[in-house]
């Protein structure tokens, strides 16, 4: 018993809250509707055999959020603040992606790759802009990214000259939904690839350690020979790549770019995913896996509410209640109170057993 508790404590740590949250949601859904997580095979419009079901739509729908949350975790850890311009930047990246696709007559694999790389470069430039403001000019991340938040979607509008162009091509639809022959949605595969890349980067470089040390104490890190400015800038550029990937998925899903609605309000959800994942929004130690779980928690919550016939505009109110509940459980004051209460219970037990021993 004690051993299992210790293992739980050591392995979960900051992951306790997100894992508990996802567990509660699963149990709640199973009680409400035992068939909620049933997965079935079905034929989609192109005649492919694909997986379908609520679980698949949860995992599929959270793809952009998960990818953005990974990048946001790095920024949060290194810069002690959040980027609130990811939605706007994704709209810009998506517009750039569509712009290149539209410029060629035939959409081939090469064009899509070129368009994606172009979107990456554009998003990285905007990331570098934010990063420069934060790392070089020492401006609070939220304020620095407020600039792009204000004007980002207008820039996306401007790139496409005030239109919402559509792109239709089998390659784009394969990116957004299913590759023929593979029953798993492509966005999910992309999330897995991105997660593996992050894992590999952390394994082969010291990025994780450096980011944490910059986030915990920037000047101490600098005295130890870590270039804090560069690490912060780098975190924003990495987030830029994540933004480009998320924007590309978002565009491919619908086959069109709408600068106003593409990944709307995702910046708030992303920050929430990072927070639910147990990461301190004040920087320092972080766990990417926590943020990914956080993203799925949010999406599962949304889908659960949809399944309960809550209209899409009202979902926010219920979401807010769950968020408050989660953060109150995770709040430091409550944790301390709970620990005190538990130790009191233990003491009582011990004193009772000691008394019992005396009597005997």
């Amino acid at each position, binding site marked *: 018993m004690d051993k299992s508790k210790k293992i739980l404590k050591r392995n979960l740590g900051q992951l306790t809250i997100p894992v508990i949250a996802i567990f509660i949601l699963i149990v709640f859904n199973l009680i409400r509707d035992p068939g909620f997580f049933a997965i079935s095979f079905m034929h989609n419009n192109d005649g492919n055999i694909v997986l379908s079901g609520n679980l698949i739509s949860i995992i599929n729908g959270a793809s952009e959020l998960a990818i953005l949350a990974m990048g946001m975790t790095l920024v949060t850890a290194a810069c002690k603040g959040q980027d609130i311009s990811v939605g706007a930047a994704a709209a810009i990246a998506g517009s750039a992606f569509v712009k290149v696709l539209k410029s060629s007559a035939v959409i081939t694999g090469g064009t899509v790759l070129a368009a994606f790389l172009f979107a990456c470069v554009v998003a990285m430039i905007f990331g570098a802009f934010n990063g420069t403001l934060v790392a070089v000019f020492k401006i609070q991340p939220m304020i620095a990214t407020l600039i792009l938040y204000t*004007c980002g979607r*207008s820039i996306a509008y401007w790139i496409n000259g005030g239109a919402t162009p559509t792109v239709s091509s089998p390659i784009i639809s394969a990116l957004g939904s299913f590759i023929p022959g593979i029953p798993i949605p492509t966005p999910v595969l992309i999330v897995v690839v991105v997660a593996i890349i992050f894992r590999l980067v952390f394994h082969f470089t010291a990025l994780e350690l450096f980011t944490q040390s910059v986030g915990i104490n920037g000047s101490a890190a600098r005295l130890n020979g870590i270039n804090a400015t560069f690490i912060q800038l780098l975190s924003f550029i990495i987030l830029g790549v994540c933004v480009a990937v998320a924007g590309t998925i978002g565009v491919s899903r619908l086959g069109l770019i709408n600068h106003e609605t593409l990944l709307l309000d995702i910046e708030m959800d992303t920050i929430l995913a990072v927070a639910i994942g147990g990461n301190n929004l004040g920087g320092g130690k972080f766990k990417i896996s926590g943020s990914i779980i956080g993203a799925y928690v949010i999406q599962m919550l949304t889908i659960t509410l949809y399944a309960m016939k809550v209209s899409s505009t009202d979902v926010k109110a219920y979401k807010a209640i769950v968020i408050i509940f989660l953060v109150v459980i995770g709040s430091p004051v409550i944790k301390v109170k709970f620990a005190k209460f538990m130790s009191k219970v233990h003491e009582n037990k011990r004193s009772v057993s000691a008394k019992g021993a005396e009597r005997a």
Partner: protein
Amino acid sequence: MKKGRNVRREPFTDTQLLMMITICIFVSMYLLAMILFGGGFLHAQQVFDMLNDNASLIIVSCGLTIVMIGGGIDISVGAVTSLVVMSCVLYLNSGGNLFVSVLLAVGIGLGFGLVQGFLISYLEIQPFIVTLAGMFFARGMTTILSVNPQKAAHESFQKLRDIKIEIPWLGYVAKNGNLVPARMELGVVAALLCVIIIFIVLLFLRLGRGFYAIGGNQQSALMLGINVKQTRFLSYVICGILSGISGYVFMMHTGAGNATNAAGMEMNAIASSIIGGTLLTGGVGNVIGTFFGTMTLTTIKKIVVSSGLNDPWWQSITTGGMLCFFILLQSVVLRRRAKAKP
């Protein structure tokens, strides 16, 4: 300032310096617009129009400035404004009392302020997350109340709404020879009152100085015997009440409740506070600066419209550029001052 009591080494504090910069830029920008575009900018009504349109934004920004001076952030203000508008309109349409509707507006704001303030200061949860949840909740509640736009059809409310303060000597002579007096809505009076009251509170009251203290350095404030938790709690409560008032002023201006009311207002309010010289790190800021920040933000939009850049994207791109300029300016100014100090 009272020089006898505390002798200053520098002529300006950070707060005053940033505020002066904002006011200077606003005045010069407005003068430039007067010279370049003439027309509407030459009439006093232009200023009153800007005030009429932005009365609720000014009130919200003042509340946000207090929270930001205390080192926090509140992004629920716009959503609370929207919720207040919707619930007051529905209440009035169901045959409610005008006085009670004001109480309802303030009450909703107070409720949000109390809950958020408690969660943030006593349970020590990050303000961004708490107020984000508050924003989601308020927006969701607004659509739960009504998805469709609701028009206020309450008689005495409409009478109250139509009261306009006319200032004849600031008016202008229209083309047909009639004198058109400058018109100001009641909401503007409320907004200006809020600015003045908060200015006095921040400058002279113990509570106001407490906000600066906890924002500047929480540990030192604690050592000085300031009740840090209570002061922070009160900053959110005041901000909540002001969002309630702002909602009522918003309703007086538009006269209708809509789920998309005040969309993006929280970010406009943050931008106003920043342009007005408030730092998100806390301890520096002033409501007079915030007031001019809002006016600057509006003026730049008016200038874009007058200069013939009609494409829909120019307004927000110039706003972004403006914001970038102010943020960089603040960063550079404060850094130079920090270096100049021994």
